[in-house]
């Protein structure tokens, strides 16, 4: 019954969208302190390779692999974040782009560990692991009227959905606190923030590290979603793609970045019928978008208007300045 409705194709696309949402949030956090990173593909790859190597070579359970991957990437991000403090704007963007490229070249050349350009295959697949696990617990897909592949796709989707919602929840709350206020103050004027008693070193590195960690986390999930990774999965195009999610959707508010990830990951699927032109359209769309709505589709004003439309459930006000329900 249910089985008819559940199409692994849609679940697959949705799963990619969820991973992209996490990536978009990861860059949003970094951008939130005025730091522009083009190195998120690099962080993503560190996460992906860490868990892949751990699970493949050391038989580590998938969950543990992903957690360690996120932590490792967070540490790397923090280490990168410290020298990055000295760089502003475009300098930082290009330097982080450089970081991503260096990581990629390293993974290409570190043959013994990464298998070079050929990549790592046979990484435990999130869905198939869940499938095996539930089988061992006596749960069979056909108990729900599902085929195996439907069950697997559905399981992956739900796990990712829960993870994504938790991530969003975490950062929405963080934004609505003293931490979030410090982030936006730094984004607007670093020196003034410092003079007002904000430890900009701490907060900038925090944001950079959190962004990196999240990207690494997404990368680890990606590895277990694809079961195969290679350095070319994490190149310049990926870094740009991640950045564009956020800028296109709107980097002022977290919902903008999320929207960007959803829209831009889904769009190519809808544009399949004009195949040959879809990337041209994608490029042109970016140009137009910046010309007419440079702050991204969703901005602060739109969020405010949206909140006014829902007077009952007065949404959380940016930076937690707001109302009682929030507290």
């Amino acid at each position, binding site marked *: 019954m249910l089985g008819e409705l559940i199409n692994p194709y849609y679940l697959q696309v949705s799963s990619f969208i969820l991973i992209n949402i996490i990536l978009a949030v990861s860059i949003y956090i970094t951008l939130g302190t005025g730091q522009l990173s083009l190195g998120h593909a690099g962080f993503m790859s560190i996460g992906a390779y860490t868990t892949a190597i751990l699970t493949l070579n050391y038989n580590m359970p998938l969950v543990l692999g992903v957690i360690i991957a996120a932590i490792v990437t967070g540490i790397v991000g923090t280490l990168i974040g410290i020298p990055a403090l000295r760089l502003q704007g475009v300098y930082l963007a290009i330097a982080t782009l450089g970081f991503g490229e260096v990581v990629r070249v390293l993974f290409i050349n570190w043959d013994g560990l990464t298998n070079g350009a050929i990549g790592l295959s046979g990484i435990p697949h999130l869905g198939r692991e869940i499938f095996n696990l539930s089988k061992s617990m006596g749960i069979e897909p056909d108990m729900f009227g599902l085929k195996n592949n439907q069950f697997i796709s559905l399981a992956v989707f739900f796990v990712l959905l829960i993870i994504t919602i938790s991530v969003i929840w975490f950062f929405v709350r963080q934004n609505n606190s003293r931490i979030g206020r410090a982030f936006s103050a730094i984004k607007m*004027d670093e020196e003034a923030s410092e*003079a007002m008693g904000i430890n900009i070193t701490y907060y900038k590195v925090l944001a950079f590290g959190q962004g990196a960690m999240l990207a690494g986390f997404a990368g680890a999930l990606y590895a277990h979603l694809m079961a195969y990774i290679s350095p070319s999965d994490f190149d310049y195009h990926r870094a740009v793609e991640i950045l564009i999610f956020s800028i296109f959707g709107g980097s002022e508010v977290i919902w903008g970045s999320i929207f960007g990830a959803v829209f831009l990951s889904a769009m190519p699927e809808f544009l399949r019928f004009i195949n040959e032109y879809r990337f041209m359209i994608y490029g042109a769309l970016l140009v137009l978008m910046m010309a007419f709505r440079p702050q991204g589709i969703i901005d602060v004003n739109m969020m405010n208007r949206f909140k006014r439309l829902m007077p009952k459930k007065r949404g959380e006000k940016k930076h937690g300045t707001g109302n009682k329900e929030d507290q």
Partner: protein
Amino acid sequence: MVLEIKKISKNFGGIQALTDVSFSVEEGEILGLIGPNGAGKTTMFNMITAMYPPSSGVISFVGNPLSNLKPHQITEKGICRTFQNIRLFSDLTVRENVMVGNHCRLKTNVMQSVLRTKAQKAEEARVLATSDEILEVVGLANDKETIAKNLSYGAQRRLEIARALASRPKLILLDEPAAGMNEKETNDLFNLIKKIQTLNITVLLIEHDMPLVMRVCSRIIVLNFGKKIAEGTPSSIQNNKEVIEAYLGVEEEDELA
């Protein structure tokens, strides 16, 4: 003594902005820092708040030297400033600006913020109350939700002061708060500074508006070409020859009128 400046010098790649300046700020007073353009007044503020390190000399706050501190640590210690060129967080609301000012008095960390612990909630409630109180003091209570950049110039200046007050300073440094204000607004500013004094906050004021300085300050330091040339009560400064020559000029009212 709240603040003690001992033999401070500052050199910017050849330009001697300050030379061996010493003075002290007494608890509870409103001390004026005046001098011609380029005399080094703003530079002095930048030294005190650790935006730049001094080339030589020592600055002590309530008896402790301030060397090797970062600007935010200075603020934590209880010194806060406003900027000559307004530097608000222009896209935040008025209230949010003030809340940011209160940042260094808050303690909650990432986990507490995300989990919304009791302590965090209480703290946030306190910030809100404090901010509203301060906005009341500076007369911006009706503009809480306005985006800072949409305020008029004079209101922005007051918001700068409010933001600095939110860090609960013992000493506040005001850099030309009256710039761009007309006489009526300047008058309001006078009242505000006096009110700050009653809150037990010491004030160090840079200002070119002489009527205001003379009225509000109990004591005045005069800089010229990076050197201290005079120190004293408003009336003694007004009659100081050197100061008149370098800075005040001769009243030309009648000539022009």
